[in-house]
């Protein structure tokens, strides 16, 4: 884990209230990043924003020495981040958390299920899985058509199903509706998204082995403040999402 100040290559609006930031990092930092890990971003110099913002790694390009994140404008901090410009420096703690243990699992066909701001980390995951010869099927859910991003990119990597809550694109409803409607073939699943979605996915897929990625309001992002805990499935102990997670085995934690 390192604190770095890195230059922004570009910042671009890629969907409704959704932005992608590409930044330049040195190779030895990029090589350490695993899909599912996040970076902890300082919003602004000065005192107004005392907490960093955790944002998942959406893509890593080792050729262009580039790291990409995708974030949605939610509150004051992400609003402030949209003010960044190319060549500005951005202050990161990197890499944070544990990623998906893609090298230690035995599988042939992965199902990826993401909702909203849970979609970005699945892209780097999908790329990494395909690179390892694992087949990938993806279900991504959004509120509405204007919020959809990366559909093409996911499509290049495997079959993709899209849902929108308002039915303006793809299947109307939730990602779990796809699980119910389609007869999907897979032997492992990975899911990232809002807690209610994860819960539904975990319940629906409880016969399958899988990993889920959790969100919680964070203080330090490095395991020092105990802000981001989640109870273990047995309710007896607690894990820190920022260091033990954000990726957990689906049956490891209580959500």
């Amino acid at each position, binding site marked *: 884990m390192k604190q770095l100040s890195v230059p922004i290559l570009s910042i671009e609006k890629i969907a409704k209230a959704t932005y992608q930031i590409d930044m330049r990092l040195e190779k030895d930092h990029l090589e350490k990043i695993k899909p599912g890990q996040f970076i902890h971003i*300082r919003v602004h110099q000065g005192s107004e*924003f*005392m907490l960093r913002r955790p944002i998942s790694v959406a893509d890593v390009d080792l050729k262009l020495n580039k790291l990409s994140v995708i974030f949605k404008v939610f509150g004051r901090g992400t609003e402030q981040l949209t003010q960044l410009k190319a060549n500005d420096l951005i202050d990161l703690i990197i890499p944070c958390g544990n990623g998906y243990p893609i090298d230690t699992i035995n599988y042939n066909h992965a199902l990826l299920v993401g909702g909203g701001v849970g979609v970005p980390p699945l892209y780097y995951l999908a790329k990494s899985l395909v690179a390892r010869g694992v087949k990938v099927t993806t279900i991504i859910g959004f509120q509405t058509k204007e919020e959809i991003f990366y559909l093409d990119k996911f499509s290049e990597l495997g079959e993709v199903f899209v849902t929108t809550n308002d039915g303006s694109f793809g299947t109307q409803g939730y990602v779990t509706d796809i699980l119910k409607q389609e007869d999907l073939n897979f032997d492992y699943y990975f899911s990232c998204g809002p807690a209610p979605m994860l819960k539904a996915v975990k319940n629906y897929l409880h016969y399958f082995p899988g990993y889920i990625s959790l969100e919680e309001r964070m*203080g330090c992002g*490095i395991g*020092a*403040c*105990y*802000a981001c*805990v989640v109870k273990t499935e047995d309710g007896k102990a607690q894990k820190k999402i920022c260091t033990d997670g954000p990726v957990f085995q689906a049956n490891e934690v209580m959500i």
Partner: protein
Amino acid sequence: MDLSVKLPGLNLKNPIMPASGCFSFGKEYSQFYDLSLLGAVVIKAATLNERLGNPTPRVAETYSGMLNAIGLQNPGVETIIDQELPYLKDYDVPVIANVAGSTVEEYEQVAKAFRRTDAISAIELNISCPNVKEGGLQFGTNADVAAEVTRKVKQVSQVPVYVKLTPNVTNVVEIAQAVEQAGADGLTMINSLTGMQIDLQNRRPLLANKVGGLTGPAIKPVAIRMVYQVYQAVKIPIIGVGGIMTVEDVLEFLLAGASAVQVGTANFQNPMICPELIEQLPACLAKYGFTSVEEAIGKGHPSE
């Protein structure tokens, strides 16, 4: 430039230490820098038994500050002694143990438990944590109770005892004098102000615990005021804490009367803050005409 400060039980090579609860037991920040650089390490509050703390969300951001309601999550004093303190022994840095409890007896028992280790140099009595329903606030807001806890812990502790005061009181000087009277070797001030944020979407307090402790630069003026007032009313040394962001803030606390300072929330924004402040301190002292840390302490009190 002489940065060293001598306090009861503590030979500090410099006056900068992380604040309790913002630094866990040190391991995480040792990924960023050598903990031996620090004046001291203050560990997370220890209670008698393990505590799981409050439900989440436990933190929220506020203008130039944050709210927390961690709820004293910690593995209990015995586990801390056996599993956390040994790691810190590898560093050349005094350790201060923050002690919390729900009853006077619990404070006593935790302090007693720490007797079996020589890994700590002082105890910091957290009589002010506003997050735990049965503990915390009550002790620190009543002078008699605050004095009682202090007295009991002093009786059993082998190391000097610093009492950490809460700012959520009408008269902080009265509490400070009561714990001094009761035998406190020093004071730490201030803990967090009780605050709240409401989640507009969910129409309820954002923190699961509803109220939380407000910390960060937002509260610095309250901390400076209290250190300043208490400095004039007690003889024991004060460790200042509350909102430190810059080396000027450090000097401001020294001038107000603090002999050393703790940095809490700022660690989250900048994990390198403590070593950076230590590095910047000599130049800052020199700029304002001081030749050592000791010389600056209390110098913000005009002699008239």
